[in-house]
């Protein structure tokens, strides 16, 4: 599935560009500009010339969104099993494929989750990783994201999930499919507890991830240019024979079609997420006990004078 997206998207990922000139320079995956690697990294892998947002690792996302030193990964030791005994003749078995993915990516699964804080606000963060098995949703990814939601319920922490996925992991069959139901249920548990869920959609977010938790956010933030949809571009073109128009299924397309709240460039994401959580959690105080109200007021007072984030309306 990973190769599928490499082929389907007109963009070469940032990692690939970096391999070509590992020391000092990288080439932008969209405009082909040569960029000074250190500046490019400092700009969170956003091209200074064309604004292309190259793919990030889990560590990059944590650095982008969380307060320094606040990240505490949980259950990083969970590993996939092979529930179907998926070993079709002539193809790599699931067990072999898992080993290959781990070796190639240096990761051990397509998601990580844990505790952290954003502008001092405690959150649960889960990040999906396109670098491992195309970010596909299997039992381990499902378990980690579900535990992130449950952490949100247990500790009344706002939950942030950064999605990047090709969809359900075929090799786990119905077990993968049912992760969608499990995660929608877990997101509902968070909703019932009235704790905010901010969903961040990055390139690409497709299939079973789009069709379950990723679109259930109270606030949905998309990264500029990210391809977001249920059926991926290749599936649409193969199934219907339609040729997709330019810009179809991008973050900007989804904003126009009413599907996401905000398209926000990387550098502004942390401030916007903090503001959204502060405002949504500020309201909860009304319904909560006086003690909880005092606590929440104290937590949010520090930032009431912040000015509106200028980029919030910038992507129409």
């Amino acid at each position, binding site marked *: 599935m990973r190769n599928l997206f490499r082929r389907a998207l007109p963009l070469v990922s940032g990692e690939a560009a970096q391999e070509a000139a590992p020391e000092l320079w990288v080439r932008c995956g969209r405009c082909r500009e040569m960029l000074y690697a250190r500046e490019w990294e400092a700009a969170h892998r956003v091209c200074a010339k064309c604004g292309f947002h190259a793919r990030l690792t889990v560590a990059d996302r944590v650095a982008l969104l969380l307060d320094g030193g606040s990240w505490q990964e949980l259950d990083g030791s969970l590993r996939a099993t092979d529930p179907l005994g998926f070993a079709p003749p002539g193809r790599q078995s699931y067990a072999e494929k898992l080993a290959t993915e781990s070796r190639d990516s240096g990761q051990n699964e397509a998601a990580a989750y844990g505790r952290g804080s954003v502008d001092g606000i405690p959150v649960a963060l889960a990040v999906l990783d396109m670098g491992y098995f195309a970010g596909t949703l299997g039992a381990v990814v499902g378990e980690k994201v579900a535990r992130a939601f449950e952490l949100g319920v247990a500790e009344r922490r706002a939950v942030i999930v950064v999605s990047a996925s090709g969809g359900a992991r075929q090799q786990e069959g119905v077990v993968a499919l049912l992760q969608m139901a499990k995660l929608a249920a877990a997101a509902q548990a968070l909703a019932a507890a009235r704790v905010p869920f901010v969903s961040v959609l990055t390139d690409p977010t497709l299939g079973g991830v789009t069709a379950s938790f990723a679109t259930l956010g109270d606030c949905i933030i998309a990264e500029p240019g990210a391809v977001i949809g249920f059926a991926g571009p290749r599936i649409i073109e193969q199934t219907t024979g339609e040729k997709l128009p330019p810009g179809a299924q991008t973050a900007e397309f989804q904003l*126009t079609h*009413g599907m996401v*709240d905000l398209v926000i460039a990387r550098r502004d994401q942390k401030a916007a997420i903090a503001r959204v959580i502060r405002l*949504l959690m500020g309201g909860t105080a009304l319904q*909560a006990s006086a003690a909880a109200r005092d606590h929440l007021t104290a937590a949010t007072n520090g930032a*009431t004078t912040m000015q509106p984030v200028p980029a919030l309306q910038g992507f129409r």
Partner: protein
Amino acid sequence: MTVLLDFEKPVGDLRTRLDEVERAYATEPTSDLERQRASLKADLAARTQAIYRSLTPWQTVQVARHPHRPQTLDYAIGMCTEFVEFHGDRAFGDDRAIIGGPARINGRAVMIVGQQRGRETRERLERNFGSPHPEGYRKAHRLFQMAAKFGLPVVTMMDTPGASPGLADEERGQGWALAANLATLATLPVPIVCVVVGEGNSGGALAIGVGDRFLMLEHAIFSVASPEAAASIVWKDSKHAPQAADALKLTAPDLLRLKLIDRIVPEPVGGAHGDPSGMITNLRTALSDELDQLVAVPAADLVAARYAKYRRIGAWFDQGGTPS
């Protein structure tokens, strides 16, 4: 660039003369010019106040529609220390004739929803002149439900000629979208304060205008239909809009007298368009005051009182029995 309404002409002449005196005084500051300046200033203030104190309903309509009048986004940004605009109905589109999102007024987190007409031609077109499509009302519906989920009081701002009346709007269920909002607002378990900031016509205004407290800016209008539409129904000719404006009792003082609204928010002398920041301050003060009172009431009591409030509206007499 100043836009002068017909009835503001006398003030306009005074303002021109004052400008001349100011310029002359800057070159040659004589005591005579200083006296003239003071006298003109006083005259201008008095005349403006006199005009705005006795506006006819049709003149009020002109003020409510003034192109320089502050609009929902001006209030959202001007009144709030934080505001994040959320977009989209999650089903069809993002209608720019309605804006909304969480915000903070005087330290209190709220949900703001309002129509936005736009100012220059391009923005007005993008926003369909403030006439929302069904997806706009459905975005509002989503934000109302989010407010209920997080216990955010709702502040709505009405400023619309009415819901968009195109065939495409009918295809996507304009009436259905409006009705769903009325029903949801009727039982939303959070405080709701509604304000007509400009023009509030018909079901298109009401669909974001049901709540615990209903405010109007001093020169705003609130009506069952635009004066033009009412005229074409009653007179079969929209040219009789001024007479319709008279008959409809659409001004804030008339509606307060009829007990159909709860409060008038005063505008700066000469109307909100002359002093937007003064208007924003006045509205923030009024809203904070209303919210302070409402947040103290338990949600169940709020909803019960809201039901009673709307249930009472309408006078009739019982021919066969006792008058109501």
